[in-house]
């Protein structure tokens, strides 16, 4: 994106004279009707469910799709949705049997059948490279499906897959009609949105490539999760998802009343937005915290004393205080407090620059060069960190860390470039040694998605890498994560998850900063806004006051 970056300045420009939103905060009985207009910073790219982790995609898929199970965003417990009960599982979690609700239809009129559900998971669990449709990150060890009778379908796994039940509740497992399942990547992309048929409370009716997507309510929707008080059709008549890359225009459109809501309010603007009368919603994403990961396979970071020194030299509290608001709580563990598997490790990261200096001296980084950076064997202690563009104020966070590390004689460079360059450079150990990221999934498997060498591999710990010698691999990380992934018992999964976190913290592999929220602003006539467990908007219960 162009990153015109005038946001703050231009908000200051108009905030003095834009009329304040004075709609009464009338709660009470939900009213039916009205189309909500909602701004996203980027246009959606792909509505293939396993690929909807990208925020703009997920914000749409979450509202048009229904899933086998429903996960309560507060308790993270699973409840029935299109399956009438929780699945029957065998002892080692290699088989799951779902019984389907009757009478569910897709927006193209076709019914939800066991055959159709089987076809969905065959695609999500295996992917189809010939159509460039990747396998779902959330479904591990998928083997095959089996239709038992006209209501039941069973899924088989080659190894325990205890995360599967939760995976069926996420928007990445939004069910698609048979015709939609035959689409290729082009069909799921811009220009083809109206071919995508789902069975959620809204369906896609109109698309203007690059700027707008319209969904409208399904009057016949009668299969909301039984756990919810609200049943039947959604209150809204529809939602118009609008895209504008320019931050000040998005915020300005909501402040001036031209739009109802916006995602991605930046921390410095929160107070101005509320002063104008808008409602601010900061929703937890319940995942891995916003963190930096030390790629220990790089020889500069191989020494645990160096990693501990970096951790001691970074003042996390200063980052949160200077750059963020109370909606971004200081991390107390590798996971957010609301995440499954959370363990409090708040005492593990103490800011102590003197200690950092001692540790670096101990590690042999005693000399300084003319620029004031520590040198060993003629080589400066110089590291590079990526900019995590989807993460809030990543560049500012890294700039602050750069200053903090400079004080102890460590040079941190910030890798420049756009999204593609960040992605590509972050795959190279020689280019990026410190990796800034976060990932949200409301399941224990989140740890595996992030740290395992077969998933996101934030440490670049894959044994077959050629840019680091084999002795630098830490096989223990994958061992602990595999043990977690193979543990079918929920209670034992908690202790397996804690073992992973203890190990990563003891080895000083990770430094978490804060629990990352999704921050939305809505005009006061918008009521009942909610999000699913990882902070994507859920407009099913949303209603507009004053709409008839």
């Amino acid at each position, binding site marked *: *994106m*162009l990153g*015109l970056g*005038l946001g703050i300045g*231009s908000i200051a*420009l*108009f905030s003095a*004279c*834009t009329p304040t939103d004075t709609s009464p905060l009338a709660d009470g009985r939900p009213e039916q009707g009205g189309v909500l*207009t909602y701004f996203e910073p980027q246009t959606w*790219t*792909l509505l293939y469910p396993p690929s909807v*982790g*990208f925020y703009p995609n997920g914000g749409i898929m979450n509202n048009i799709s229904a899933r086998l199970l429903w996960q309560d965003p507060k308790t993270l417990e699973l409840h029935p949705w299109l399956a009438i009960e929780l699945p029957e599982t065998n002892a080692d979690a290699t088989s799951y049997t779902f019984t389907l609700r009757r009478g569910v239809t897709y927006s193209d009129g076709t019914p939800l059948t066991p055959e159709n559900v089987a076809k969905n998971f065959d695609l999500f669990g295996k*992917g189809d*490279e*010939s159509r*460039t449709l*990747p*396998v779902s*990150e959330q479904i591990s060890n998928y083997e095959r499906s089996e239709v038992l009778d006209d209501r039941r379908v069973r899924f088989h796994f080659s190894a325990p897959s205890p995360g599967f039940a939760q995976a069926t509740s996420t928007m990445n497992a939004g069910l698609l009609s048979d015709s939609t399942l035959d689409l*290729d*990547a*082009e*069909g*799921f*992309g*811009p*220009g*083809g949105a109206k071919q995508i048929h789902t069975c959620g409370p809204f369906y896609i009716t109109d698309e203007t*490539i*690059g*700027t707008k997507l319209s969904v409208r309510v399904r009057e016949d929707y009668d299969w909301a999760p039984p756990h919810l008080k609200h049943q039947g059709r959604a209150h809204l008549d529809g939602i118009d998802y*609008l*895209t*504008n*890359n*320019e931050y*000040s*225009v998005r915020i*300005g*459109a909501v402040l*001036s009343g*031209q*739009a109802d809501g916006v995602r991605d309010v930046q921390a410095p603007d929160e107070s101005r937005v509320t002063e104008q009368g808008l409602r601010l919603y900061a929703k937890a994403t319940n995942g891995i915290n916003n963190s930096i990961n030390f790629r220990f396979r790089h020889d500069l970071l191989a020494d645990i004393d160096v990693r501990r020194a970096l951790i001691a030299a970074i003042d996390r509290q200063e980052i949160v205080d200077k750059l963020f608001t109370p909606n971004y709580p200081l991390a107390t563990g590798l996971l957010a407090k609301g995440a499954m598997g959370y363990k409090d490790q708040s005492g593990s990261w103490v800011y102590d620059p003197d200690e950092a200096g001692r540790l670096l001296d101990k590690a042999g980084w005693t000399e300084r060069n003319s620029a004031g950076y520590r040198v060993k064997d003629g080589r400066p202690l110089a590291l590079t960190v990526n900019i995590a563009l989807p993460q809030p104020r990543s560049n500012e966070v890294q700039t602050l860390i750069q200053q903090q590390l400079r004080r102890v004689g460590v040079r941190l460079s910030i890798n420049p470039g756009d*999204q*593609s*360059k960040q*992605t*590509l450079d972050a*795959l190279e150990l020689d280019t990026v040694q410190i990796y800034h*990221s976060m*990932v949200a999934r409301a399941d224990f498997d989140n740890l595996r*998605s992030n740290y395992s060498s*077969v*998933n*996101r591999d*934030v440490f670049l710990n*894959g044994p*077959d890498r050629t840019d680091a010698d084999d002795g630098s691999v830490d096989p223990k990380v994958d061992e602990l994560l595999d043990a977690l992934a193979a543990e079918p018992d929920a209670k034992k999964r908690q202790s397996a998850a804690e073992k992973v976190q203890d190990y990563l913290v003891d080895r000083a592999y990770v430094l978490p900063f804060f629990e990352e929220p999704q921050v939305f602003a809505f005009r006061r006539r918008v009521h009942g806004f909610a999000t699913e467990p990882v902070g994507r908007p859920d407009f099913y219960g949303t209603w507009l006051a004053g709409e008839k």
Partner: protein
Amino acid sequence: MILDIRYLALRLGQAILVLLLAFTAAFILLSLIPGDGVTARFADPALGLSPDQIADIREATGADDSWASRYLLSLTGFLTGDFGYSVQTGAAVSTIIAAALPSTAVLAASGFVTAVVLAVIIAVLATSGPTAGPLSWIRRILDSVPSLFISIPVFWLGILLIQVFSFQLGFVSVVEPGPAEALVLPTLTVAVPLSAPIAQVLIRSITEVQASGFVKVTTAKGASQSWLLVHTVARNAVLPGLTIIGLVFGELVAGAVVTETVFGRNGIGLITAQAVTHRDNPILLAVVVIATFGYVIINLVVDLLYPVIDVRLRTKRSAASANKALRNHDEPTRRALTASAASVGVDLDWAQTPGDTTAKGSES
């Protein structure tokens, strides 16, 4: 005959050659950038694909084919109207371009017309004030308007216009505006910086023509300022203006990238900005070729218009040699041209020929 067939064929051939060269240069440059769109998209850790799966996708999309076969494939694709598929979304590039092109064409046309109108107004006002005396400051201020306009950042202007006219005054809506409503502010955003170079050239050429001998003669005969402007000055000042109009097309495209991004208009500019972010080479290649095509067409039209507007350039020889003849004061040519110029009412001033710069432009 106004247009020489051989000249036309030559210019068309040149245009096709320019297109081919632009395509090739863009292809080579995009191939040189490390990391392609397929890797950028599918190696994203968020997708959690294994290296084997990525390799399979690379093979399926032909990303690992030799550059020569990819070059031939995309070249033949372009010749048959098949621009390939976006690596970012998988959608056909032709679909994306087809959705974006009309919006950009409308914006470019309205922005361009507005820019020309604005430039003419500025130029006329700036050159009609008194050059000396107590009111000469008006002229000096108007004279500096183009420099001011050209230094306004396009995105700043766009945001300012939205803030004032949409959010504060509520004249137009940025959310679901009508077709005309959606065009007003982006058009102004594109037009203001675009009008600057046109106005500057017009001011200079009007000033030069005003200072020339035939104008003095006409003034001596009793013509008023405004009569002069319309009947003699304008005609002679229009050719340099036409040349610069051909040249500012590039700025029009650049302005559209920013303007469409600020206003959230789906156009070639917006998809270019997005394609750059995502290394979407098939889209970038198509945009380069389309932009070059537009540039070539506009300059071809401008070149072909010269002889229509300026009779001195109507000759079987190329425009360049005609101009050479003029400069050499070739007596028979001069006499012939003066005669034909008189027949269409164009005043020629041999000492100071605005056509000089024009003819140089047409050589390129």
